[in-house]
């Protein structure tokens, strides 16, 4: 077992555990913290794949900015434990076995069809300069469009989150 595989399995175990914990926890703040663990472990996986830029952006933007926003909103709204709701019996009866069968089939197909392919770690020439070349030359138009999207999102968030009394275009 190579060292890369051991690292992959370690980060993957954190990912899987965090994702399952996100589903198991009833309080949103616990779910948010386990999601942060998943994102940090994913950054490790990106490093293993030779994507340093994506790993850095994952930590800064996802685990840093977006999850801070989530935690902030959870604390702002004082979100408590979610209530138990009655689920459908039929869904459990048929859904869980169906999901198991489907996932095992998919795993079998994926492992079979691409079993011999391997990702050599660190073999990808992906320093941030190459990505910048792609981003600001080949993908310049999408890049600009996303900047406009961010601008619109900022304005939308401000309008939506502002108090109804303070907004001028309020219709009762």
């Amino acid at each position, binding site marked *: 077992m*190579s060292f*890369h*595989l051991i690292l*992959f399995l370690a980060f993957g175990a954190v*990912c*899987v555990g965090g*994702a399952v914990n*996100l*589903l198991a926890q009833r309080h*949103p703040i616990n*779910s*948010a913290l386990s999601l942060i663990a*998943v994102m940090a472990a*994913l950054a490790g*996986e*990106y490093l293993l*794949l030779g*994507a340093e*830029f*994506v790993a850095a*952006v*994952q930590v800064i*933007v*996802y685990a840093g900015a*977006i999850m801070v*926003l*989530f935690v902030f*909103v959870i604390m702002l*709204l004082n*979100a408590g434990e*979610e*209530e138990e709701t009655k689920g459908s019996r039929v869904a459990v009866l048929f859904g869980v076995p169906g999901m198991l069968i489907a*996932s095992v089939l*998919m*795993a079998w197909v*994926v*492992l079979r*069809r*691409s079993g011999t*392919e*391997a*990702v050599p*770690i660190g073999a990808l*020439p992906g320093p941030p300069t190459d*990505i910048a070349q*792609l*981003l600001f030359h080949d*993908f310049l138009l*999408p890049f600009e469009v*996303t900047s406009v*999207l*961010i601008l*619109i*999102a*900022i304005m*939308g*968030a401000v*309008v*939506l*989150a502002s108090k109804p009394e303070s907004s001028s275009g309020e219709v009762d």
Partner: protein
Amino acid sequence: MVPLSYYLLLSGFLFACGVVGFLIKRNIITIFMSIELMLNGVNLSFVAFAAHWHALSGQVFVFFVMVVAAAEAAVGLAIIISVYRTRETLNVDQVNLLKL
């Protein structure tokens, strides 16, 4: 050397966890976090394929996905705050009317 299929399986598992959380969770914020989990699973498969095919475009796409996720998080959380202000609840079962 880690086979590509391992990464795909991990990515599929994360996506499936996101789908399950989206369906079984009742708190609107947790549902939103499940969507983020799905996006992360897709990002992992993007990067794995980029490494496999030696194509950097995959990493650039991950960058775009992250930007869109950030915009979505900002607007979505603003909507959640607005919903909480009018409904006083975060339970999606009780948010069942479009109009107040």
